């Protein structure tokens, strides 16, 4: 089964890659199996929660950007709830209303689905239980059509409904070699409590939670790749400094800041053992590296200009992109080796280029650039770091800043004031599927973590 899917995906990718020679096509992958996800029904107390279950499942699958989602209006009227509902007819007649559901209902026009996700929910010992199946409807019979069937348990409330739907979606995506974004978190900065604090939410904007409570300015969060710590910049102790919290206890853990007017922009190495940051210890904000507790500081750049936002390549750990105003020029994105050698400018020198962020594969950066616009009017760009080819993803809709990549390497979260005040948005790396995740207060500086 998995082999067949993989083979189909390779074929589809090969066919589509000719239409999209640009590197964004390569980032996005071009396989698009068609999947139908009819609304599931629920028995007992589960009935009232099916809106949440069906909505969450559909959105997780759609957001993964690996499927062509067949519109629900195309679906046949007879919907199976479990595999035994399928009855192979002696002679298939799509117009026979009394016939039992059959695979061809889904594979034939107008549905033209390759896959069908279906099932039902019920109440069992006060818990919600979801029975979910994935079928390849192109197969000749039920036995070969079933990719998997599984039972999911959750509490009988919205949290439980979301949980079972996320888990079903994750299992479907796993069949296609894709890690679900459900369970990933977006950390961000919000002033909705009255001061800028660090917050977190699920990738779809649900479950927004306040992480810090310094009642000062706390901003620019960065999560360690092992998911145990969050480092940010805070004025809580006077001058802006790097502050680290455990994500397990949410308490502050020690970080030794160099003596400087400003220490900021912490970001972790792939093994979570090093922190790159900028510090004005020399009188100019420059790039430094230290152990995760701030010990063993070493200076990587040595200029009389403002240099900020170092980001270590998450794959190799050996190269760093950063922002520099060296030579008296407007800030641009540069790269260097992790020992500070071989500095090269990546952006063209036009406008102001800021906020670089590596994709998980370490091949591309997303960044904010005013190229082609007035100062301050940033748009999101993606660059292939080897060839320095770049693509503009947003255009002219307000200030678009601080892009960071999702763990799947296909989604980007960023801030934009296109709807008024700055809010957190996600999109695919080809600029499509825009979603606004926040709306209360001013929200900015998103960081997507596993």
């Amino acid at each position, binding site marked *: 089964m998995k082999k067949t899917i993989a083979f189909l995906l390779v074929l589809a990718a090969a066919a589509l890659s000719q239409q999209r020679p640009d590197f964004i096509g390569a980032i996005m992958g071009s396989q698009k199996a068609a999947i139908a996800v009819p609304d599931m029904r629920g028995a007992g107390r589960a009935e009232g929660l099916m809106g949440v279950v069906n909505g969450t499942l559909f959105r997780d699958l759609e957001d993964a950007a690996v499927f062509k989602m067949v519109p629900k209006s195309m679906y046949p009227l007879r919907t199976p709830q479990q595999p035994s509902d399928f009855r192979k007819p002696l002679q298939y007649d799509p117009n026979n209303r009394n016939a039992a559901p059959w695979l061809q209902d889904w594979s034939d026009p107008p549905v033209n689905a390759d896959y069908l996700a279906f099932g039902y929910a019920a109440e069992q010992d006060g818990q919600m239980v979801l029975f979910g199946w994935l079928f390849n409807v192109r197969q000749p019979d039920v036995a070969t059509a079933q990719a998997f069937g599984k039972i999911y348990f959750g509490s009988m409330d919205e949290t439980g409904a979301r949980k079972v739907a996320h888990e079903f979606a994750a299992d479907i995506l796993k069949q296609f070699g894709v890690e679900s974004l459900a369970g990933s978190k977006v950390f961000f900065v919000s002033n909705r409590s009255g001061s*800028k604090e660090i917050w977190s939410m699920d990738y779809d904007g649900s479950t927004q939670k306040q992480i810090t409570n310094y009642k000062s*300015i706390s*901003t*620019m969060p960065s999560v360690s790749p092992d998911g145990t710590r969050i480092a940010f*910049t805070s*004025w809580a102790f*006077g*001058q*802006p400094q790097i502050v680290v919290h455990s994500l397990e206890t949410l308490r502050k853990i020690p970080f030794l800041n160099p003596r400087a*007017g*400003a220490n*900021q*922009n912490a970001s972790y190495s792939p093994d979570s053992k090093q922190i790159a940051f*900028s510090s*004005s210890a020399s*009188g*100019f*904000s420059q790039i430094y590296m230290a152990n995760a507790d701030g010990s063993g500081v070493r200076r990587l750049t040595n200029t009389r200009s*403002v*240099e*900020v*936002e170092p980001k270590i390549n998450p794959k190799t750990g050996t190269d760093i992109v950063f*922002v520099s*105003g060296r030579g008296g020029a*407007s*800030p641009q994105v540069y790269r260097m080796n992790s020992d500070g050698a071989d500095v090269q400018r990546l952006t063209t020198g036009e406008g*102001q280029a*800021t*906020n670089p962020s590596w994709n998980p594969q370490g091949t591309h950066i997303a960044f*904010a650039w005013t190229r082609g616009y007035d*100062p*301050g009017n*940033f748009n999101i760009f993606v660059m292939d770091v080897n060839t320095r080819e770049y693509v503009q993803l947003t255009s002219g809709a307000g200030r678009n*800043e601080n892009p960071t990549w999702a763990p799947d390497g296909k989604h980007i979260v960023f801030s934009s004031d296109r709807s008024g005040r700055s809010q957190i948005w996600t999109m695919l790396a080809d600029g499509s599927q825009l979603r606004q995740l926040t709306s209360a207060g001013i929200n*900015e*500086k998103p960081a997507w973590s596993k």
Partner: protein
Amino acid sequence: MSTKKASALAVALCLSFFAAGCKKKVNVPPPPAAPKAQPAPPQVSKPIVKFFSAEPTTIERGQASSLKWEVTGADSVSINQGLGTVSASGNRSVFPSDTTTYTLTATNGGGSVTESVTVNVTAPAPKPAPEAPAPKATFGEIIARDIQDAFFDFDKSDLREDARNTLTQNADKLKTIFRDYPNGTVTIEGHADERGSAEYNLGLGDRRAIAAKDFLVQLGVPADRLRTLSYGKERPQCTENNESCWQKNRRAHFTGQ
């Protein structure tokens, strides 16, 4: 290279190109007509400054005056006092802390023309004397009242002439104030306008605060009484989306503790 020399050279290059071309291929169809000769550079007339005005020409310290100008026929237009290169017509709000003469220079191949306008700055009207003897002002109140902000250009942390003037006055006052308040310290806050990134502006604000501090120390203000604190663009004093507001935010600001 001057414009004059450049165009002469260009004409010469053109001519030599066509001459060589004709010599080689006599029978082929003629090359397209040579481009019309450039008008000789000396004929270019100087730019015309239609007007260069300040409104109002007299302000109280801390208030704004609006410079307005329109120039035709210029290759470049600039205004001194730190305003730098500007467009051919436009306006700009200025906040001189002392009477200042602004000189506009319009230049083209024919020469340059200058025009000046003076903004007179008066001290703010003294507040009416309080009826009862006022309690002695605190250190923080004196700093807030007497020590002026120094302003910066976009994406710059070097001190403009107006900022140097302001800081020179601040240095004199601070030396006196520190003598009267031996325990007071002053924090120099560095601020930036909203347009750059928050990260870069934090570094830039730090530079602005340090530049202001270094200048004061050079003038004899004790360094151990001065601290710096960059807010980047996190604490703007003005939140409108225009240059006059941005200028107010590109500043070194002083608070007393």
